[in-house]
């Protein structure tokens, strides 16, 4: 598809500087990340080196590459799950006057920042087992200060769109099928309408109808000015939502 071709840029392993965008929301600059595996005789596993990237508001950037290329690592660095070795990650959000510098922030600030601004949507639902589905979905919205009625309204709409029957809303998702859990998790990711969405293959193994719904949700998020940074393997999805595709390759690590 021509759209895909247009959106794809060359690999960014070479010291390509981030595209300077007026309204860059996420900026990764010369980011390096290696894991030191102490259990394996301090083996050093380099995953990213001098990696730069930026995502603007209303833009969707897709990371593509074979497994082990560091796609998820980028998402996790931005989410604060992984610590940065060098370089800088700057997040420009809503009312913030200056950028939020992830590497310099106190864990508590990262937690608060996340709650307010970032949704991390993966295929896996990880919640306390006993909560009813509607609660599970509403929670991120409530946690960033959205009124109960509003949160419930949003959660119900999302569950409806994603084809989770009303009879299931009162039940904990632990009892659901894999596909249902995945859709609950997607609803959970979109409910708070965070300005930054980190998407870790949320559409993997969804049927085409639900894939369409998720694509719709991502488009709406973009229209509302959210920045989307995602890992997708599904070319169809990529074609429909990507503004920019970053090709990634695994680092050469000495064995």
């Amino acid at each position: 598809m021509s759209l895909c071709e247009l959106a794809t840029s060359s690999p960014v392993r070479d010291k390509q500087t981030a595209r300077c965008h007026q309204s860059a929301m996420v900026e990764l600059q010369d980011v390096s990340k290696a894991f030191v595996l102490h259990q394996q005789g301090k083996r050093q596993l380099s995953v990213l080196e001098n990696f730069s990237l930026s995502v603007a508001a209303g833009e969707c950037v897709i990371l593509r590459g074979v497994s082990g290329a560091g796609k998820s690592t980028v998402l996790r660095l931005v989410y604060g799950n992984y610590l940065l070795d060098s370089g800088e990650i700057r997040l420009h959000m809503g009312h913030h006057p200056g950028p939020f510098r992830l590497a310099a922030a106190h864990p508590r600030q990262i937690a608060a920042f996340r709650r307010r601004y970032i949704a991390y949507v993966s295929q896996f639902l990880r919640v306390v087992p006993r909560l009813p589905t509607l609660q599970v979905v509403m929670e991120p919205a409530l946690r960033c200060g959205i009124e109960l009625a509003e949160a419930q309204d949003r959660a119900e709409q999302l569950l409806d769109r994603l084809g989770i029957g009303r009879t299931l809303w009162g039940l904990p998702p632990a009892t659901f099928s894999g596909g249902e859990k995945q859709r609950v998790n997607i609803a959970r990711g979109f409910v708070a309408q965070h300005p930054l969405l980190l998407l870790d293959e949320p559409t993997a193994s969804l049927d085409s109808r639900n894939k369409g719904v998720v694509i719709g949700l991502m488009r709406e998020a973009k229209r509302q000015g959210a920045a989307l940074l995602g890992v997708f393997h599904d070319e169809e999805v990529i074609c429909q939502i990507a503004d920019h595709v970053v090709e990634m390759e695994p680092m050469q690590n000495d064995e």
Partner: protein
Amino acid sequence: MISDTSIGMEPPILSARKLRYDYGNGKGIANLDLEVFSAEVLAVVGESGSGKTTLLKCLSTHLTPQSGSLSYRSGKGEPLDILQLSTAAKRELLRTDWGFVHQHPHLGLRMRVSAGANVGERLMANAWRHYGDIRSETGRWLDMVEVDPSRIDEAPSLFSGGMQQRLQIARNLVTRPRLVFMDEPTGGLDVSVQAKLLDLLRRLVFDLDLALVLVTHDLAVARMLADRMIVMREGEIIESGLTDQILDDPQHPYSQLLVASMLAA
């Protein structure tokens, strides 16, 4: 307006500096710095003997550190030097503003009086003198922790382990404390009962703006409940940070070992 520096950085509710407690044999805790904030769960993890419980006892005034400082920001916003407080003031804190949930319910409950009296005690200790009010408030809290209020007059010894633990939590929370310490609250409970308790705790922390310091050796529990985590080993903090950061990207060799040996969480 939320500024870059202020987000999530209101002053800590409890802050410890260079805490040291030595049992006299070189074991205990040393040089320990720590901050606890409102509306967050801080998990303290580490294996047995790493000093977790000693730390909890020092923070909750059950042990007096040999050196260091411990400061608590009261509800009125004024800082209290905990180590300089009189016994009376410490005990008052422990029955009003603070809570302590023991691993074994029989340490935290009076097994010879009814469930209702166990929960009501803290109210009576805070000068509640209207039986009807005490009764209804207690019933409300039993309901909140999912103990059938119709069992209000039963002895806790008739309750299951999970119910006893929830009763202990109600007993502590009934005075709306701002800071609660818990020592392995889910230890010794069935997995399904654990889940119920975890869910309850999470909800309460969120609803009541609690600061919760949770000692556990169960990383799965920490993952589900805690915003931040500290890893202890041989009386020292070897790593601290966001819970998922430490679990997903542990830096210290010992943290890596700990995470590697954990069951999928």
